[in-house]
C-alpha cells in the first residue's frame, strides 16, 4: 500500500517555481528521506501534503486519501512537524497537546499524551508555559503535537535543527520504534549522516524537481565508494596500487576498495613492497559524497 503519493505536482509562488512536476510514491512502513539544498522545494512539497499550500497542478494523497477532495481522512492520516519553531504562548505543554488532540477529534487522550511526554523527555515540563521552554524543548513539543492522533504517516521537516546530541538520539530511538511499529516516516534533514543511518530510500530534490530517487544502498553503491587512505613514511606507493590511487593533500593516498578483502590485499602489497605506513584509515561510502556528486551533475546539466 502506498502511504504518500504525489503525481505531477506543480506549484508557483508568484515568479518563483517551487515545484515543477514532482511525482513520487512512498510505500507504507518506509523510512523515507527527502533531501536537497535550501529552496529545492522540500518544504513546499510537505506543505502541499498537509494542505498548507494548494498545488497548482497535479494531485497528492496520504494513505490513498486525496489531500483536497478527501482532506479530512488525509489529514487524520498525517502528522507533520513543521520546520519553523512555532507555539501558542497562551498555553502550557499539556494544554497544547490536549487541544491538539481535540482538533483531531480525540477526547480522552491522556494516556497517549503521558507516553509522548515521557518518550520525548518533556514530562517534567508538562505544566510549564510554552514560552518558558528552550528551543529544543519547543521542537519536541511540536513532535508530540504531530503525534497526538497517532498518524500512520509522520513527516519530520528538519526535526533536529537546534536539538542537542543526546536529545537527538532520544528522538531517533522513538521515531525508529514508531517506524518498526508500522508508521511511515518521511524525513528532511541537512544532516546527511542522519539520513544515511535512518532512511531506507531517498529522494533528492533540486529546483522543484526530483533528481534522484533510489534506495540508500543503491545510491551509495553508485555514487560513493569505500576507500583506503594511507600515509607512507619515506617511500613511494607500490606500482601495483598506484594505478588506481589518487594523491590527496597532506601526503595521503586514496585507494578505492570494494570490500574489506580488498583492504587486506592492499595492505599485503604494502608489506611486500616494504613500505612503512605512518597512518591508515578506511572511509566508508558517504551520502554526503552522493549528494555533492548528484547536485554537481545537475548543475552541469543546466
Amino acid at each position, binding site marked *: 500500500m502506498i502511504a504518500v503519493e504525489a503525481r505531477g505536482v506543480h506549484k508557483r*509562488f508568484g515568479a518563483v517555481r517551487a515545484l515543477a512536476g514532482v511525482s513520487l510514491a512512498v510505500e507504507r512502513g518506509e523510512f523515507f528521506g527527502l533531501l536537497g539544498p535550501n529552496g529545492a522545494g522540500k518544504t513546499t512539497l510537505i*506543505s502541499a501534503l*498537509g*494542505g*498548507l*499550500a*494548494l498545488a497548482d497542478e497535479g494531485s497528492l494523497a496520504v494513505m490513498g486519501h486525496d489531500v483536497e477532495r478527501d*482532506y*479530512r*481522512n488525509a*489529514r*487524520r492520516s*498525517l502528522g*507533520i512537524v*513543521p520546520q*519553523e519553531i*512555532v*507555539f*501558542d*504562548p*497562551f*498555553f502550557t505543554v499539556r*494544554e497544547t497537546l490536549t*487541544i*491538539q*488532540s*481535540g*482538533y*483531531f*477529534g*480525540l*477526547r*480522552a487522550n491522556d494516556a*497517549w499524551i503521558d*507516553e509522548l511526554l515521557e518518550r520525548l523527555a518533556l514530562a517534567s515540563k508538562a505544566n510549564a508555559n510554552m514560552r518558558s521552554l528552550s528551543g529544543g524543548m519547543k521542537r519536541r513539543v511540536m513532535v508530540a*503535537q504531530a503525534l497526538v*492522533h*497517532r*498518524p*500512520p504517516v509522520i513527516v519530520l521537516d528538519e526535526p533536529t535543527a537546534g536539538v542537542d546530541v543526546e536529545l537527538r538520539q532520544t528522538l531517533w530511538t522513538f521515531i525508529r520504534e*514508531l517506524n518498526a*511499529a*508500522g*508508521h511511515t516516516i518521511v524525513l528532511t534533514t541537512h544532516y546527511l549522516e542522519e539520513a544515511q543511518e535512518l532512511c531506507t530510500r531517498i529522494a533528492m530534490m533540486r529546483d522543484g524537481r526530483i533528481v534522484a530517487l533510489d534506495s540508500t544502498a543503491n545510491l551509495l553503491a553508485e555514487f560513493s565508494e569505500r576507500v583506503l587512505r594511507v600515509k607512507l613514511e619515506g617511500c613511494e606507493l607500490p606500482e601495483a596500487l598506484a594505478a588506481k590511487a589518487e594523491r590527496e593533500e597532506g601526503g595521503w593516498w586514496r585507494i578505492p576498495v570494494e570490500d574489506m578483502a580488498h583492504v587486506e590485499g592492499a595492505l599485503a602489497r604494502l608489506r611486500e613492497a616494504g613500505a612503512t605506513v605512518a597512518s591508515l584509515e578506511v572511509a566508508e561510502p558517504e551520502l554526503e559524497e552522493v549528494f555533492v556528486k548528484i547536485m554537481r551533475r545537475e548543475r552541469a546539466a543546466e
Partner: protein
Amino acid sequence: MRPSDPQTLHAFAGFQTLLYKEVLRFWKVSFQTVAAPVLTALLYLVVFSHALAAHVQAFPGVTYVQFLVPGLAMMSMLQNAFANSSSSLIQSKITGNIVFILLPPLAPAELFLAYLLASIVRAVVVGAGVFAATVWMIPVPLEHPLWVIAFGLVGSALLGTLGIIAGIWAEKFDQIAAFQNFVVLPLTFLAGVFYSIHSLPPVWQWVSRLNPFFYAIDGFRYGFFGQSDVSPWASLAFASAAFAALSLFTLYLLRRGYKLRH
C-alpha cells in the same frame, strides 16, 4: 503504539476544542480583554453624560444617561466581538502557530463557527460587565428581554464575522488596526450610540440607515426602553441580512483557503 490501534473519534470534538481554546485564550488575559473595555465604557459614560445630559433628549421619559447605557454596552460588545476573532487570527498568522489549526481535519464551517462563537462569548461577557458596573448608579428599564438577547447576539455575530474576515485578510497588526480605526470605529460611533438619529439632519438620518451597526444598537435599545428610531423587526431583518451576507463571504474565503492556505 501502532497506527492501526483503535481510536474513538468524536464528530464535534474538533469544533468544540477550537471554541474552548478561543474562549480560554481571551479568558486567560481577561484583565485586558474584559476589564479594560468595561472601564473604557464607564469613562465614556461619565464624560458624555456630564457634557451632554443637559442638551440631549432622546426618548420621552428616558434620561440621557439611561439612554446612553445600552448604547455603550452594545458599542463595547461590537468592538470586542471584532477584536476577539481578528486579534486571535492575526496573532496566529504572525507567530505561525496557525499551522496547528490548519493541519487538523477541521472543516471551514467548524473554523468559522468556533471563532464566531468565541467572539460572541467575549462580547456577552463584556456587555454584561458594562451593565454590572453601571446598574448600581443608573437603573435602566428592561421592557423586552428577548429583543435584548436577540440584538446582543446578532450584533456580536456581525462583528465577530467581520473580525474573522479582517483576520484572514490582514498580514500585519497595522492592517487590523487600520480596519478597526477606519471601519469599525466610525461605523459604531455613527450608529447612534450617543444620540438618537432623529436628532440628525435628514441626509445623515438616511446615511445612518445604511449602517448595519445602527440597527443592532437601535434594536438593542428597543429591548430596554420599548422605544426606538425604527421598528425592531426591521432592525432585526437588516442586521441579520448583513450577518448572513458576511457569513457566506467568510465561508467562501475559508473554503478557498484565501491567505491561509497558500
